[in-house]
């Protein structure tokens, strides 16, 4: 842990600059349980991201057949069997609430699982590190090369590394734009330079951001830019499992030989042999033995490194592992370890997730596919006709969210003896107007409601427009008022 700087040291003239120059991190390659979990998760995450736009989903004639598509020109969002209209964007609010709660739950159970395994910054940085090690060699080779002079061979390798990085970054940007248009068509257009300029622009932006964030910014994003580590510090509790150096077992650190000597005297020697492997493999360049800290994204690679060393020196593995300070203290006091995954907060998070899921599922299942909105004329709000009858005008907007045309009938309920007239649709049955709604679109019509002269008519009565699908029997309502001049 950071030691406080004594006040007299702060006062010296030799105070450094206010910013610390970045110390380049050379994470060493490592293998083990967590490394293989990370490889697999990386394959899944990148696989989904790069390939999803090419998955097809049949929706019928005239509709796009891309499984996941954000169609800005036509203002539609497609996700497999779901099609959302712009006014249904609130579903995304539900998704965001769900995402936040899931992050909270993960945090309460196993610390920064998101940061260590799933965050795009982690995944792409991990990939870029792998490329770097493949081309320029492992930690030691890189450090040695960086300390030495620039040679032709080294320059060549460096150029190759940047070329591969740029290729990955470019592919990342390329995959991004495929979510916004028909992927196979866009790929062809991009290749023949016929795609819209905006596509090339976004590929350039995403290429640049991927290259800079994963190639150069790396752990600085987590340490300086990202708010999530700060939020997590406020969310966590003493029971959450975090990647922990079990100092009860590791301290005092000493070499294998010294430990043997001390133990033969009957005194306590720690299991940590101070080999620094946990520091060497760390992608953010921290020392886990200093305890929980902002820079630790809890990727578990130090666990793999330490376990390998412990196996070599024939000691029990798990000197670094998912643990918490309560258990460290209990072991020091000679008590049993206890784990409490089911606590008030995890139960609350889990139930909230269930509730939000249920609400969203219900909202999705009960989503209306036929809808009508009404807007009363503002000027004039009512018109007196020559026989004393009163007429009100309304604008009706129909929403047909189905993938085919449908015929609807419009009825009006409310005022006594109300007559309905649709402007531009007098050829069909006048007492019950029927109109055709185009597939997957909105239709706007002006309608007039006329009520015969009545001395005792109320100043304002509710009026309901009832829209009935003639074929399917689906019904939608819109309510407004019928008013006198």
């Amino acid at each position, binding site marked *: 842990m950071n030691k406080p700087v004594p006040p007299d040291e702060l006062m010296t*003239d030799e105070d450094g600059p206010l910013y610390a120059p970045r110390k380049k991190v050379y994470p060493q390659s490592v293998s083990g349980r967590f490394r293989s979990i990370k490889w697999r998760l990386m394959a899944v995450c990148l696989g989904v991201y790069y390939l999803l736009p090419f998955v097809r989903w049949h929706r019928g004639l005239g509709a796009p057949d891309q499984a996941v598509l954000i169609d800005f020109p036509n203002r539609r969002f497609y996700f497999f069997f779901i099609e959302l209209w712009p006014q249904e964007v609130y579903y995304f609010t539900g998704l965001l609430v769900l995402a936040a709660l899931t992050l909270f739950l993960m945090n309460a159970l196993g610390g920064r699982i998101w940061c260590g395994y799933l965050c795009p910054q982690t995944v792409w940085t991990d990939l870029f590190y792998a490329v770097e090690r493949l081309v320029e060699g492992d930690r030691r080779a890189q450090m040695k090369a960086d300390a030495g002079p620039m040679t032709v061979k080294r320059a060549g390798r460096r150029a190759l590394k940047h070329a591969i990085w740029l290729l990955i970054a470019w592919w990342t940007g390329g995959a991004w734009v495929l979510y916004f248009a028909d992927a196979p068509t866009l790929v062809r257009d991009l290749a023949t330079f016929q795609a819209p300029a905006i596509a090339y622009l976004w590929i350039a932006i995403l290429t640049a951001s991927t290259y800079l964030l994963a190639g150069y910014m790396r752990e600085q994003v987590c340490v300086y830019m990202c708010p999530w580590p700060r939020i997590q510090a406020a969310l966590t509790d003493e029971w959450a499992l975090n990647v922990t150096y079990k100092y009860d077992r590791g301290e005092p650190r000493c070499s294998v030989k010294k430990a043997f000597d001390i133990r033969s005297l009957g005194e306590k020697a720690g299991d940590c042999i101070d080999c620094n492997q946990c520091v060497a493999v760390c992608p953010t360049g921290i020392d886990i033995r200093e305890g929980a800290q902002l820079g630790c994204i809890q990727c578990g690679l130090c666990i793999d490194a330490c376990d390998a060393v412990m196996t070599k020196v024939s000691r029990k593995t798990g000197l670094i592992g998912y643990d918490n300070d309560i258990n460290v203290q209990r072991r020091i006091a000679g008590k049993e370890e206890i784990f409490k995954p089911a606590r008030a907060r995890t139960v609350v998070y889990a139930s909230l997730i269930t509730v939000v899921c249920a609400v969203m599922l219900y909202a999705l299942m009960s989503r209306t596919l036929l809808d009508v909105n009404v807007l009363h*004329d*503002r*000027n*004039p709000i009512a*018109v*007196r*006709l*020559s*026989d*004393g009858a009163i*007429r009100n*005008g309304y604008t009706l907007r129909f929403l047909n969210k189905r993938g085919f045309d449908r015929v609807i009938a419009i009825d009006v309920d409310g005022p006594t003896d109300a007559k309905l007239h649709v*402007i*531009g649709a007098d050829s069909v049955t006048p007492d019950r107007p029927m109109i055709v709604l185009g597939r997957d679109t909105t239709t706007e019509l*002006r309608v*007039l409601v006329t009520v015969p*002269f009545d001395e005792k008519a109320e100043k304002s009565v509710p009026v309901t427009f009832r829209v009935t699908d003639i074929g399917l029997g689906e019904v939608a309502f819109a309510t407004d008022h019928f008013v006198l001049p």
Partner: protein
Amino acid sequence: MSEHNEIDRVSGRSTTGHEWDGIKELNTPLPRWWVLTFYATIIWAIGYWVVYPAWPLVSGYTTGLFHYSTRASVATDLADLEKLRGEKMAVLGSASLADIEKDPALLALARARGKTVFADNCAPCHGSGGAGAKGYPNLNDDDWLWGGSLDQIMQTIQFGARSGHAKAHEGQMLAFGRDGVLKKDEIVTVANYVRSLSGLSTAPKFDTAAGKKIFAENCTSCHGDNGKGNQELGAPNLTDRIWLYGSDEETLIETITNGRAGVMPAWVGRLDPVTVKALAVYVHSLGGGK
């Protein structure tokens, strides 16, 4: 500035020589990139003078090499807009009024065009929603002075009423009182008679027979035997519930005494034929069209 080159002991940098309460300001020159950018903007400004209008002269100004003018660019934009609308407006121009109303797309186009033109030209008298005011007809209802069919509305918009145009609607309510045709008590009597035609209450001592006689002698030539009006002359129907100037006794006495002759201007020549067509369709679609 004698101390300009004094070196600050702590930072090892020179000071500006300015001192406040013993605190000296370090000399921190602008970064080179900033200075270069500053010079670049000066050069840019000079370039701007050369290519764009910049300096006022005694009469006029320097036009610059590009001869740029905001006035000209507005004119170009407007011309482009007309060109853009041209095709669609041509379709409106060639379709008949009835066809426009039958085709939903054309109807929507005509209504959209008509609505803006109405707001610019008609709203000052008829109101933004066409609801009219005292003396200015409500265009939403089904009572029309000069006829409410598409063609009749188009005719009225083109040539107006009492507008001075040769083809304008003519005919007016005479000033029976001012011109001495009817006496004061006769005017009161006929005003009450007119109220009775549409079922409105009359004065207690009102003589129906006298009123009917005065009406038959003076009013029927324009308003018809039973007061139903005549759209050829713009004579309103006196038996319905819509009153352009008001139906109370006082207003009717004023109308009969001084006459009425509201003016609708002629729009032919001021609005192009396609626009007038769109306007006619728009007014017709407000709800009262016949």
